[in-house]
């Protein structure tokens, strides 16, 4: 499933990101690496998603969140 479709509170493992390598790299630098355990914290204004990785929290815009494939944990 896609990260953008993950329900608030749900946990998942990152599987793959399908976009240009520069953005993939930035996402990985921010912790969204294949296998990483994440939790969907919620949806923000403008369609952005708030995701928790470990104790860190990041916001990703809706269209980028729709490029990230995850597997429910």
């Amino acid at each position, binding site marked *: 499933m896609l990260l953008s479709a993950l329900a608030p509170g749900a946990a998942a493992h990152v599987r793959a990101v399908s976009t240009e390598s520069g953005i993939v790299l930035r996402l990985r630098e921010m912790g969204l690496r294949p296998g990483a355990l994440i939790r969907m914290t919620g949806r923000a204004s403008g369609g952005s998603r708030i995701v928790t990785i*470990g104790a860190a929290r990041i916001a990703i815009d809706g269209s980028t969140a729709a490029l990230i494939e995850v597997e429910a944990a």
Partner: protein
Amino acid sequence: MTTLNNCHETGSPATLSSATGTATRAPSVLLVGNPNVGKSTLFNALTKARQHVVNAPGTTVALAEGTWRTDRADVTLVDLPGTYSLIARSPDEQVASDAVSDPAHDLAVVVLDATALSRSLYLLGQIARAGRPVIAALTMVDLAEARGLAPDVEALSRVLGIPVIEANGRSGKGLDALGAAVSSALETPPYVTGVTQRGTEEVIGDRLTDAQELFDWVEAVGDAAVPPSVPGATFTDKIDRVLLNPWVGPAAFLAVVWGVFQLTTVVAAPLMDGAARAVGGPIADGLSAVLAVLRAPAWLESFAVGGVLAGVGTVLSFIPLMAIMFAAVSALESTGYLARVAVVADRAMRALGLDGRAMLPLIVGFGCNVPALSATAVLPHARQRLLTGLLVPLTSCTARLAVYLLLAHTFFPGSAGTVVFAMYVASVVLVIGWGLIARHTVPRDITPEPLIIALPDYQWPHLRTLAFSVWTRVASFTRKAGTVIVVAVMALWLLQAIPVRGDHQIADVPVADSAYGAVAQGAAPALKPIGLDDWRIAAALVAGVAAKEVVIGALAQSYAIDDTSADAQSTLGEKLRATVDETSGGHAGAAALALMIFTLSYVPCLATLAEQRRLFGWRWTALAAGAQFTGAYLMATAVFQVGRLL
């Protein structure tokens, strides 16, 4: 590049530039870390007041540099821009990346955020790979502890092979230990183990594979030092549920911006007036009295009071305003709210290729453009700051409102309110229009990157850090923008004081016979296409460069109306109406609208220009002013030419 002298006598003689030079310099230590990891708080706690702002070599990226008195020696500490990676995506990140690979710096202190350790470790890994000696300061341990995720400091130090010191800039914890670690590291440089060293530019294979090697190392270090845990929702998450809520979020953001706007207008106004009144009243009287005792000639007194002191007074009156703005920006930044602004306003600003945070300076600009320019500091990327800074002068500040009011009441007495409102709409349209033009022309590499931003935990602002930050920025404004303002006000005085015809003494010249009047008379025919070919209007526009509200005073002066009572205002209106009726060939309404449009955007005021120069340099300031003037002239011409046909 610019190297500035220290603004404090206690400062160290070493600067970024001298780091490449003399043998007797203090060792240079870099403070590197992700954004929002408590790096600047640490910097302030370590250097106290012994700090100042410098530009990174060849850039407009401002860095704080200070002297750190460790147990053994003084070192120069440089607070680099926060970055997640040495693979730079903005000029600010490039500055950090360049500094790290510059051998002129002796040591890097990498700030590791205990709440986002793997992100911090990745940056540390990149620095280690560049082969630089490094030690680590671990911050935010209390926050990580609260979530059962506190790293084991000893295990971390062991697995990394470098000293790791738990430090807290707020409480002062661990600062002495950090100092001691730095002194030892300067004698015996420590290097991270487990990472293969190589240059920063050298990439093996593609970037992703290359980074993967570091990610694997980060995972291994994390496994050794961090307890495994998936934390639940925190206090910050609960606040975010409100502040980032699709409905409440934008309203909360507007409330915050409204608060900043009120601070820079309502709260700052009496302080600005007070400063201006003190300079214009008691100080000016005192100076006149002293010059009278010294039997100074009348022109000298006029120059001292009307030129030098007026310039100094302008700068002084801006200082409380700037201090308030800097404090507001620093507070928003240190609470962690600013990162949320980037999320909330993302959609709205994205169309202009701008970060959501650009909304803040652009709204503040409607109060006053000068602090709005300073507020561009909220943007983490130099090009974003530049583009926003070039758009700020198009936001219609309150000084321009005074001009609209006079013109609207004079020429559109029945619908003055609508006309003034239309000017604000025009201002917003101009910002969007110029923003789109600039996005597709000038700074070409502003592409709307996806929004991927870390949201730090909410924290109370740290007052000491805030005070230092306000102090260093106000000092920089006063020194760099202040001098330009004083010189320019003196130049305007000269123009008005020098007689070019008739038999007049210097500094006792009727406006029409001064150099200023001559310039206006020369320039007036250029206003013909706008229907405003009159030297008094041209003169008022020239004076408006000093400050927009001066336009009205300058008109009154040219029409030789002395007092500023309500009667005089309506007299001025009548005289102006008579003039414009004549110059516009009976289309006074169209010409008045054109004049308002022209006033809105023909050129930023002196203080705005000086602040733009401080932030972006002369070249951009001149280019933007030129483009703005041309645009204003063409628009005003179009408004008049179309308007008179209707």
